[in-house]
């Protein structure tokens, strides 16, 4: 039977401060610093992460780095020892992040593998699943992705139409998932599917652990406005999934996904302790990274223009406020002074900051955003502007975050949902997918 914690404390609720049996944080920091200096390659000046992060080479490099960290005892700082992690506290992870962020790090694994999928598996996977997957992932052998959204579904994840029909020892999976980021090169997925059509929609869902590259699963990359090919759509053609790959209870998949989404909100808001905390704001403050708004200003020689100076500073303020908000909300949640769903504030802050800064970039760039002889910061940010809504859509739209904040943080009444009490088979829903193969 799946591990279904009932207490409010869950396996992924890592202690904020060290417990007595843990290594002292300062000692850990010293040890980490020394090892990093000796063994890891510093990032080129001005870079935030491995420059070719999204290429095949970059991903392979990230896998190698994971293995290197694992061997040295620095992979999965906050994951339990029994699954290959280090069993340390959030304070250790912060110390690690502060030390590690000047070096090449496998940040490609942060989202979604380390910060979303693995913690969810930790909370709801079976012992066998955890033993099988967590150590391998911490060694860089597995990358993960979530299969949640569907081309008919929009924000309504619980309205999933992808079917998993039990047939002896297997679930037969059929349907389609979409907006899974990087699925084409990931290894495993947690997949939300419908196992029961005769009950209310949230009560007939299950989560399956699915090996991505196998017969019957077709993965198609989707080109984004900015040229990125990271998002994918998957098509399942009666794929047999062994029944022991169920994560959580059958028909109780919504519980698993709710937790997954909570991990996701933290992660996207840069508030997760399971991946290196990027602290971009702090790094910018220390002058270790460049700000694209500053880069455009310098490219165009507008540094003395008072209007431009206001715009750059406005963007700068937003990128200082965002980590400050993450810090505050994270602290509040850990201290029990803010409810858990407050992580939606981090996600919303991340998306709205990006949107506002993209607008500022266009204002600063002027006609250099429209046309250019040679590409540069202005043209690059014009591309960012075109696809700026992506962060406000992926992983739960801004609208969903605002619902969560108003309903589950501020305690306002839930939206009227006609499908709330009906059997799912009777619910009015989209029949036309937004996208077909």
């Amino acid at each position, binding site marked *: 039977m799946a591990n279904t914690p009932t207490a409010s404390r869950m396996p992924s609720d890592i202690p904020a401060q060290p417990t007595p049996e843990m290594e002292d944080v300062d000692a850990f920091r010293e040890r980490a610093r020394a090892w990093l200096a000796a063994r890891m390659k510093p990032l080129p000046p001005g870079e935030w992460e491995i420059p070719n992060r999204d290429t095949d080479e970059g991903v392979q490099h990230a896998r190698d780095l994971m293995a290197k960290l694992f061997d040295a005892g620095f992979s999965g700082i906050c994951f339990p020892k029994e699954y290959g992690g280090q069993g340390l506290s959030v304070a250790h992870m912060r110390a690690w992040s502060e030390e590690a962020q000047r070096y090449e790090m496998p940040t490609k694994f942060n989202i979604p593998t380390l910060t979303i999928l693995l913690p969810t598996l930790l909370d709801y996977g079976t012992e066998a699943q955890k033993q099988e997957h967590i150590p391998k992932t911490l060694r860089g052998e597995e990358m993960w992705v979530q299969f949640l*959204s569907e081309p008919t*579904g*929009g*924000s*309504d994840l619980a*309205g999933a139409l992808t079917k998993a029909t039990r047939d002896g020892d297997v679930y037969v999976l059929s349907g389609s998932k*979409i*907006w899974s980021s990087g699925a084409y090169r990931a290894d495993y997925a947690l997949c939300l599917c419908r196992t029961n059509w005769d009950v209310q929609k949230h009560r007939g869902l299950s989560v399956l652990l699915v090996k991505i590259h196998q017969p019957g699963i077709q993965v198609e990359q*989707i*080109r*984004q*406005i900015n*040229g990125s090919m990271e*998002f994918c759509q998957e098509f399942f053609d009666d794929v047999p999934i062994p029944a022991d790959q169920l994560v959580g209870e059958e028909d109780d998949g919504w519980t698993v996904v709710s937790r997954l989404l909570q991990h996701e909100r933290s992660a996207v808001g840069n508030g997760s302790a399971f991946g290196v905390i990027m602290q971009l704001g702090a790094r910018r403050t220390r002058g270790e990274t460049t700000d694209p708004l500053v880069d455009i200003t310098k490219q165009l*020689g507008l540094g003395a223009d008072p*209007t431009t100076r206001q715009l750059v500073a406005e963007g700068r303020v937003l990128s200082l406020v965002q980590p400050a908000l993450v810090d505050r909300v994270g602290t509040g949640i850990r201290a029990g002074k803010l409810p858990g769903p407050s992580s939606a504030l981090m996600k919303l802050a991340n998306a709205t900051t990006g*949107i506002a800064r993209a*607008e500022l970039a*266009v*204002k600063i*760039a*002027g*006609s*250099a*955003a*429209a*046309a*250019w*002889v040679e*590409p540069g910061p202005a*043209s690059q940010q*014009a*591309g960012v*502007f*075109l*696809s*700026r*809504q*992506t962060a*406000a*859509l*992926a992983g739960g*739209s*801004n*609208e969903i975050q*605002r619902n969560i904040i108003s309903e589950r943080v501020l305690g306002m009444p839930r*939206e*009227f*949902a*006609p*499908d*709330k009490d*009906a059997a799912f088979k009777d*619910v*009015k*829903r*989209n029949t036309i997918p*937004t*996208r077909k193969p």
Partner: protein
Amino acid sequence: MELQLSEDQEFFRDTTRKFLDAEAPLTKVRALEASDDGFERDWWRRGAELGWTSMLVPEDLGGGSLSGAGLLDLVLVAEEMGRLVAPGPLVPVSVVASAIAAGGNAEQQKAVLPGLLAGATFAAWALDEGRGPWSGAGVTLTAEQRGSDFILNGTKSTVEAGNVADHFLVTVRTGAGLTNLLVPAGAPGLTVVPMKSLDLVRRFSRVDFSDVTVPSSASVGEIGGAGGEVDRLLQTAVVLQCHETNGAVDHVFAMTTEYAGDRYSFGRPLSSYQALKHRFADLKLWLEGSHGIATHAARAVQQRAANAAELSSAAKSYVGENSTDIIQDCIQLHGGIGVTWEHDLHLFLRRATVNRVTYGTPADHRERIATLLSLEEG
């Protein structure tokens, strides 16, 4: 969409719309991405036959408008082109034709207008220098007078349709002051450097002038006295551009309203969610404001009214920033599919963004307005 049209205008608009629907669908726009010109020359010639190039040129010079107020007719074409983010150099050809019709000498009119009107040749307006105030005062490219010639040296940036232009109207500074010179594309020393554009089919160029020599008869209008005309041409460009953008936004808004009505989430249509309804209401407000100010600006520029400069800059400032806000929110309302290459929304966002920042940014035009307000006096 203009809400008050004569029957002639309605017919003209419908003809243009049918032609564009048939001959410039979005699939065509996508297909033209990789082309050099960004449009098909034969297609443009057929558009010219419909009257696209004639509206700002009087009948005695081979042009002619429907209503006698050519700009108010031509904005209908601009709106329809916006609806389908159509290709084609409507703004530069219109502006240069208008300039030659208004101030060119008989020889220039005879040599250049027939080709432009027929859609057989092309013209571009080289004004922008990528920096400084958006008015004649921002022009630093100099044309030195030597005998009866002008020698041009300097660079113009973001010249729309520079890639296909047979003629350049180059706004320069001479000893006498601001001057518009008509320079043939093949003039020695004139180099057209293609620029990459955010828009799939709108082409811009950098144009470098290195000792480019033209006779003083190349001046369109008075030598040194082009200040007022440059302003009128800029107003004309901006008004056309704002109408084109409004056409694009109209289309996106209609698509999105329809989508929100069709699409169900949590058992309810998207359009039943009040948070979205109120955003749609705001988008509608901004869109109607955009149409309103663009229309006021078009009338003022057509009439050469005293407030034409202020209203056209107000239109540019308002339409420029609101258009991209509206389209971005429509992308958001579409969900994930809205940020894919295969969905058409980005084509509209590209056009609106390019329109927003060319022929002066909203901030540039606010600075123009501030100057008109004489803030530094008493």
